[in-house]
Each structure stands twice: as C-alpha cells, then as structure tokens.
C-alpha cells in the first residue's frame, strides 16, 4: 500500500496549539507541503508573527525566527540579505500585517524583497481575545467594536492584496480561501507557486488566506466556514492580482 497523504516532513512532530477547527493549521500544512515539494527543507527559514500563530516557529521543521508584532517582513529582509542562499517566508495575521506592521509589509513589498509572505485574514485579533482587526467587516461585532464596526468612525476593512498590487515591485499577489476542500486545493496551487517563485528568487510573493476564527466568532468550525463565505468573500474577493510569471493575469473572480 502506498501512502498518498501524510504529515509533511517540513512540519515538526509538535501538535499545533490552535483551537479545534482553526484554519491556521490548514495554511501551515499547505506551506509545509510546498516547501517539501520544492525540496527546500534544508534551505528554508521562516519568520513567525505575534498572534495565534506566534508558535509557528515550533511547528515548521527548519530554521525559524520569532519576530516582534508586525515586524516579520523587516526581520525576513535582514535574514534574506544576510543569507541570500536561503529562502525565507513570513507568516502573519491581519492585526500583525495590516495594522501594527503596515509600514513593514508595504515597504518589503515595494522593495520587491525576495520573500514569500503568507497572510492569514480571519477578520479579528484571535490571540488577544477577539478585538477588532483592520480587516474586521463593516458592522461586525468584536470585543472592541461591541456595537459593530462603524465605518463612519473607524473606516472600512483594509484589502491588502488590492493595496499591495498597486505597487510596481511585487511579483505575485493572490488571495485564496480555505473554506472547503475544493478551495483548499486551489489555495495549494497558489502556495506552491509562491514557494516555487521563492525558490527561483524571482521576487516578492504574497498569498492572503481568507480564514476563520471559530473561537472568537463564537461559531462552530463547520459553520464558521459558511459565515466566512457569506460575509468575508464578498468583500475579500479571491483571485490573482499580480503574477509576473504568467501573461494576461486577470483580476479577481467576479
């Protein structure tokens, strides 16, 4: 009998610390698989954020650095510049990347740093207990927007793929979702492409995952995917925003 699906060797044996059904785990697995499939386990280094995935440095089975909140793209820049023979990625949540770390991500993208950035958008601050994120949807209730996000007061959610694809340098920018096996299969392709481009040192690659936070949304894991489909996908449209490796890339799926 042949094993056709198993834990990739690019993950350590440590169980994830995420809540049951949290899709951070799916994103981790896709990244780990792509690194394994690209044969990069011995040249790879990752940077973990501050957020629920703060312990990502324990889960990936190669060298990992833990960055201060929002600073992962700067840390990864230093790492890649110091060791150009290695391949570097960051893994960041929406608070980490789109609030406190906005300057770092925009400028790493603008410099076209030869990194992959994996951005998990769950529309909330998971780790600190469900506060409003820069990606929290209009009228969405969180512990710091108890009456719903008032866009007149605090503005609209930030669409990072759209924002970053206004820059000239980024090589590949795509938003994917993790809300069903079919969507995960699409996401796997995108992650694989980002890591392949990374291996070839082509430039800055950015994958946004539309994800969930069953715990802080207060919705069970299966239904939270439906909630994300109904509420997040209309605002955060999946699709490829930039792919310098392919001709005629269309914008988002309509």
């Amino acid at each position: 009998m042949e094993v056709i699906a198993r834990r990739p060797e690019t993950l350590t044996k440590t169980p994830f610390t995420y809540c049951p059904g949290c899709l951070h785990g799916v994103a981790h697995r896709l990244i780990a698989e792509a690194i394994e499939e690209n044969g990069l386990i011995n040249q790879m280094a990752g940077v973990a954020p501050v957020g629920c995935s703060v312990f990502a440095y324990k889960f990936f089975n190669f060298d990992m650095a833990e960055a201060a909140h929002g600073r992962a793209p700067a840390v990864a820049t230093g790492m890649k510049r110091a060791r150009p023979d290695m391949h570097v990625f960051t893994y960041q949540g929406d608070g980490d990347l789109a609030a406190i770390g906005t300057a770092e991500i925009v400028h790493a993208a603008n410099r076209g740093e030869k990194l992959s950035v994996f951005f998990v958008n769950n529309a909330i601050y998971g780790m600190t207990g469900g506060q409003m994120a820069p990606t929290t949807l209009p009228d969405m209730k969180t512990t710091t927007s108890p009456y719903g996000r008032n866009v007149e007061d605090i503005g609209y959610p930030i669409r990072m793929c759209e924002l970053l694809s206004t820059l000239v340098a980024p090589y590949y920018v795509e938003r994917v979702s993790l809300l069903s096996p079919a969507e995960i299969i699409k996401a796997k392709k995108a992650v694989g492409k980002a890591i392949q481009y990374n291996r070839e040192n082509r430039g800055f690659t950015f994958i946004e995952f539309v994800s969930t936070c069953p715990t802080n949304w207060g919705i069970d894991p299966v239904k939270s995917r439906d909630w994300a489909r109904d509420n997040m996908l209309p605002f955060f449209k999946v699709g490829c925003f930039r792919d310098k490796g392919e001709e005629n890339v269309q914008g988002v799926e309509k």
Partner: protein
Amino acid sequence: MPKMTVDPYYCKGCGLCIAACPKKIIRFSENINEKGYHYAECYKQEECIACKMCYMTCPDVAIKVEK
C-alpha cells in the same frame, strides 16, 4: 484497498473531515484522546475511495491516507 487513519494524538475533534468526506464514512470515536477530544475515525474503511478530502481539510494534519 484505500485506507484512512486518524492519529488521535493530533486530532482535536473539530469535525471538518466528517463534513468533507463524500462517502460519509468518518465519525467521532466514542473514545477520547489525551486532550479529551472525541477523535475522528473511519468506520467503513472498505468504502473509502482515497479522495484525500479529509486530509485536505484537516487543520491538525492528523490524517494519513493510503492506497
């Protein structure tokens, strides 16, 4: 014959694999693992078609599929 196995050490009983399986052959075990979760198990191995949907959807990478 295809075979799907869940490693109870990793499973957190989230049920996403149960929702994903086209053959509906995964359920929660009556037993619990060390962390206290009713882990998932395949109770009709002979019907498994090795489609890997369970593996694909499992956030804790607890599943192995063989063919």
